[in-house]
């Protein structure tokens, strides 16, 4: 199938920022460093385990018919938790549609994310509650929303920055390039994070770009860095630095997180059609959670009891999600008329009235 080794995919060139080896040992780095307490490290571990758990539960629930679709973040926990935890609550985040780990860091209830995949809404949450924007299914446009938001932040002189996520596939969209350029020209306080998980559905990164995506940034005039996206410490360190760079009035920053989509693209997808199991197996060795666990255990910052407690918490979360999803109510039959406009609209009123009349007649056994 796909040749694995072009510059676009290669994870070994010197530019890659890594602070924790796949074996769980600390790696020094000249430019980026991080010093976390055991408590903080355990927090990251917990975040990743819980994210993986509710994500996996979502896959099961989809299979059981509780959702039409689910897009799993399996394998990308470090990229998401590391960056998500690097942001301050006051920073504003624009996800793509797979950032369940980032949502978790913002305090968004996993059930909130599931409404759209169940089909009861298209998102429906209030972005301002957690400074976490809605998922956007059309790939590309949201990076410009994030950029515009950051331009507004600059106008306000607010002490905050914006995080904007996109995928390796997304990097090809004209809107993403326009976002990089608008951000550069306006010196906007925004950090772009490209999770390069190797695949856009069945399209490998080699067909998406000829060079690593972080290089795009220099082409628009700002710094870009490639990070080991399965290394939660590196992700956190670099995202922190990038956000500080942005908050400090130095303009945008691009982080390419080199990671891997361990699951199918979505529950409807069949990756055996386009990629080798060997590739997945290879990446399993770089698992972000196993890596941090090894570090914690080696340093004796986590023992079996601790790990078991996290598992128990994960079980409880899974159960809560399962119960919550199963009992998530359907919307009212006329709900789709309700928010087309913020202000009164005669056509919507007329159609709603007509439909309501129809429904009533129908129920009377018309």
């Amino acid at each position, binding site marked *: 199938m796909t040749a694995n080794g072009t510059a676009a995919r290669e994870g070994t060139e010197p530019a890659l920022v890594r602070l924790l080896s796949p074996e769980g040992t600390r790696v020094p780095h000249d430019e980026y460093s991080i010093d976390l307490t055991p408590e903080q490290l355990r927090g990251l571990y917990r975040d990743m385990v819980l994210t993986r758990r509710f994500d996996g539960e979502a896959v099961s629930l989809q299979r059981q018919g509780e959702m039409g679709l689910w897009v799993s973040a399996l394998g990308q926990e470090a990229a998401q938790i590391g960056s998500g935890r690097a942001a301050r609550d006051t920073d504003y985040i624009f996800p793509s549609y797979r950032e369940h780990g980032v949502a978790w860091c913002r305090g968004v209830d996993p059930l909130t994310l599931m409404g759209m995949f169940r089909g009861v809404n298209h998102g429906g949450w209030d972005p301002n509650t957690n400074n976490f924007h809605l998922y956007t299914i059309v790939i590309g446009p949201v990076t410009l929303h994030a950029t515009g938001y950051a331009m507004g932040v600059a106008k306000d002189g607010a002490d905050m920055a914006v995080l904007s996520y996109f995928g390796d596939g997304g990097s090809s969209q004209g*809107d993403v390039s*326009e976002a990089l350029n*608008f951000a550069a020209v306006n010196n906007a306080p925004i950090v772009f994070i490209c999770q390069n998980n190797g695949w856009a559905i069945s399209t490998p990164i080699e067909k998406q770009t000829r060079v690593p995506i972080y290089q795009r940034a220099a082409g628009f005039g700002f710094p870009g860095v490639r990070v080991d996206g399965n290394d939660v410490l590196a992700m956190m360190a670099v995202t922190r630095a990038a956000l500080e760079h942005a908050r400090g009035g130095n303009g945008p920053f691009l982080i390419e997180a080199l990671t891997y989509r361990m699951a199918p693209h979505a529950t409807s997808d069949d990756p055996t059609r386009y990629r080798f199991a060997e590739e997945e197996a290879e990446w399993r060795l770089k698992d972000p959670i196993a890596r941090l666990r090894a570090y914690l255990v080696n340093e004796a910052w986590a023992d079996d009891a601790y790990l078991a407690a996290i598992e128990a918490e994960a079980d409880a979360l899974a159960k809560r999600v399962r119960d919550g999803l199963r009992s998530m109510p359907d919307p009212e039959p006329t709900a789709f008329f*309700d928010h087309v406009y913020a202000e009164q609209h005669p056509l919507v009123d007329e159609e709603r009235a007509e439909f309501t009349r129809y429904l009533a007649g129908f129920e009377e056994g018309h």
Partner: protein
Amino acid sequence: MAARTLTMVKALNESLRKAMEDDPKVLVMGEDVGRLGGVFRVTDGLQKDFGEDRVTDTPLAESGIVGTAIGLALRGYRPVAEIQFDGFVFPAANQIITQLAKMHARSLGKVRLPVVVRMPYGGGIGAIEHHSESPEAYFAHTAGLRVVTPSNAADAYWMLQQSIRSADPVIFLEPKRRYWERADVDVDEMPLPLHQARVARAGTDLTLLAYGPMVRLCLDAAEAAREDGRDLEVVDLRSISPIDFDTIQASVRKTRRLVVVHEAPVFLGPGSEIAARITERCFYHLESPVLRVGGYHSPYPSSRLEEEYLPTIDRVLDTVDRAFAF
């Protein structure tokens, strides 16, 4: 304060100025809106008075303009984004159709996007390709957008005020060939609601329905028809989405005949919806089918042919004759 006589360009300019004075969150953005004041000078002097932070020349990228306007609206601003010409709105089609129009519904009402997208539209000024198009049907078909267009300077002033204050996104179409026509503008007078049509000329024999650039033409056609002894009513639609069907219906129940005139192509143009719905509402009142005069199913032609392509008084009157021949 008494009414002043202003060109439509000046009325729009003053309306923007007023909105920016009233609300510090109002921003103006687009290609060449700053020092140049826009290619039609609608934003003339605004950057000088309000600064680059509120009146911004953007890079040449329409998707970027509308996309960052959405982001600014998410941050609490009220951007008024200019698209330089009608034919250049399509790079922004995705932002407008899948994002601007749908985010309020997507968020179940939690996110409002009070963005105004202004653009000059329509033909008749002898321009090159893409500078004379009438893309209103694309936007009117899209739920979540409001689409309005003034036909005169007074409406231009007030409808822009109302559009900027709207909690919903508004596509604001400016009939460029009327930019330099003057009208009395009373900046104190209470306006019509944004989406209400206006009977521009009362008549009894047939209703001419038009909006934007074609209202003046229809008024002239009505004058000409008087010589033939026909008393035509002219309705200025003002809003293409939503459409004020009640006002049209009242007119048609009276006159019993309707001709819709627009520059946009007839095939699936706004007139098709008006014909379909008014026929349903007035089935027993109509003495002739609703007839339409508009652009043909062709790209907007080169300027030496635009008089042929566009509705003229004669084509309107010809169609009026056809209506009476039924």
